[in-house]
């Protein structure tokens, strides 16, 4: 039974259900449950739910220790950039421990943070830096774009026995969508086809999924039928779904809110170039943020980001229908 709830409520619903289901799941971080009558503390007690100081290295390092000692911590980091303060713990510790022990330990933990908040929060709070967590063996990265996925991926991330960066998108927190009640799991590593189509493949993540869908509507009016794919998990990446689409359409546009060389689009493009080359009828086109720290001023902020027009323009280019661009 599904009903419409906002993205942010869906995230919390999953966390709540998992904490009720499994008492080894913990939840802590800055500004988490500061008061006694906070709903999390009321539900699960002050042992399992805690507020911690601004100490990312300790907060994330502790999560590793808790996981080694048999717990499943969810750490609230608020913004993905704050993980940078503790990058060593994020990429160089937790994900590597199982491997270096020859499989003797496991590190189940979830690093929960928001990203992409391009709403005037200026250069240090608006990044899409998920690529820093990609390509680290042992570390998984999810980027849900719908409320249903936000719930299903959080539940799966908590149940996963590995460290997972759960990156929710701050521009989507109030977006409503159908979310099943009760236990609901979305497997990690599985892409979703948001809109089937036959003329061009658009791969998009997070907030750019919505942009891609709007672009697809605009293109439909021109008789162009776009297929929109949302990987949902960046690591491990569901390339078979993407490659099947490329085989069908032969043309690819990759939309990503990150800057070019820090985008998931860049490594998706590399995979397509290597494994889908024979299907391609045009070069792959990337639509990413421009190479600049996100500016504060509104018109400039909008300028550096991907949008529907840039996506439709890229589609016309790969279809060879674009007019000469200045």
């Amino acid at each position, binding site marked *: 039974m599904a009903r419409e709830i906002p993205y942010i409520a869906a995230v919390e619903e999953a966390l709540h259900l998992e904490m009720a289901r499994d008492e080894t799941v913990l939840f802590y971080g*800055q*500004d988490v449950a*500061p008061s006694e009558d906070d709903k999390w503390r009321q539900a699960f007690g002050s042992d399992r739910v805690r*507020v*911690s*100081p*601004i*100490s*990312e*290295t*300790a907060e994330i390092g502790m999560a590793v220790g808790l996981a080694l000692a048999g717990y499943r911590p969810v750490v609230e980091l608020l913004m993905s*950039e*704050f993980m940078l*303060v503790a990058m060593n713990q994020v990429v160089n510790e937790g994900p590597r421990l199982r491997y270096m022990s020859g499989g003797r330990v496991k590190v189940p933990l979830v690093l929960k943070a928001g990203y992409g908040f391009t*709403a*005037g*929060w*200026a*250069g*240090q*709070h608006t990044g899409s830096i998920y690529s820093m967590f990609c390509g680290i063996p042992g570390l998984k990265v999810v980027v849900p774009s719908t409320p249903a996925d936000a719930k299903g991926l959080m539940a799966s991330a908590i149940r996963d026995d590995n460290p997972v960066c759960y990156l929710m998108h701050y521009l989507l927190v109030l977006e409503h969508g159908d979310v099943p009640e009760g236990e609901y799991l979305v497997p990690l590593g599985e892409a979703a086809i948001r809109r089937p189509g036959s003329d061009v493949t658009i791969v998009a993540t997070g907030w750019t999924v919505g942009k891609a869908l709007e672009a697809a509507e605009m293109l439909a009016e021109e008789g162009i039928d776009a297929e929109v794919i949302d990987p949902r998990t960046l690591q491990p990446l569901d390339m078979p779904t993407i490659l099947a689409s490329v085989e069908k359409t032969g043309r690819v546009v990759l939309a990503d809110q990150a800057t070019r060389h820090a985008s998931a689009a860049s490594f998706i493009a590399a995979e397509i170039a290597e494994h889908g080359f024979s299907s391609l009828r045009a070069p792959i086109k990337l639509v990413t943020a*421009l*190479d*600049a*720290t996100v*500016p*504060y*001023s*509104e*018109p*400039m902020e909008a*300028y*550096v980001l991907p949008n529907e027009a840039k996506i439709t323009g890229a589609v016309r280019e790969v279809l060879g229908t674009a007019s000469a661009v200045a």
Partner: protein
Amino acid sequence: MPGRKAKAAAGATAPALDAGTAYDLLATMWRIRRFEERVAALHHSLLVHGLIHLSIGSEGVAAAVCRQLRDDDAAYSGHRAHGHVLAKGAPMDRVMAELMGRSAGLCRGLGGSMHLVDTAHGLMGATGVVGGNIPMAAGSALAAKIRGTDQVTVIFFGDGAVQAGVFNETVNLATLWELPLIFVCENNGMAEFTTRAEHTTVESVCDVVSPYGFDRQVVEGADVEAIWSAFGGYLARARAGTGPFLLECRTHRRRGHYEGDPLASRSALDDEGWARLDPIAQLEATANKRGWIDQQRARTITAQADVDVDRAIEVGRSSEPLTPAQAAGLVYA
């Protein structure tokens, strides 16, 4: 060879407040107060957008500290920087224009509230990441030491930053290297939305640095005279090339953590309670009692502040945002 500097006698060359200085400090504090109040209103009407943290309640620290600094002294601040920036001498219109995202802004609209920079006045940077630039301030101080000048660096930070590892890393180095660095902590007992007691067992920031043994003290943020005197004493010694020092100012954060903070109303004081913690009310009372200022003069101060803020808003509104092409050229040096 690094070593512990000898503790100088307390009270060495601690300057006293006089009528003229008190007037200047009041003027600065009112400028900050009026500026922040208007920014709150502008934020409500969306002329100023994004994440805004106001300094209402801590103007005394900004004024008493920055009034004693030179343009070539460096100051770093955190996300709650408007007061420090104005007090250190950044032109108000350029600060306002920055908050409005216009090209006339201090950072041409590229940084916004949390990233105000004005190197001409020694304002080396603010940061949105708590504690993020504490080590940078140590770098400034080290540069002064290497150059052999009498420049001093001030790092403004809140009590929330003290639990961050980088704070301790910097304290150790500043002590080891005897850097001319003055830590000015605005301890308002709140870090974002939670109280200090939920972050640490050690109530006073002075006690957190006690293992390092450098000179430090606590003053009330509403007692501008005490801040003036304490900071002045440290400043004189820092100019002689020694340090570090820590001044812990107990302030009150009048508004929520940020503009729009839904929890703000919860901790609101009544008028009497606020008046006791308001540095402006307290300094005005003191100045009145000592015959340094009268009601009429006090009114001209606030009137002038309003004029300045009006003008700043005008300048901001009439400035255009930077064009994308202009911004693109600023990514690299």
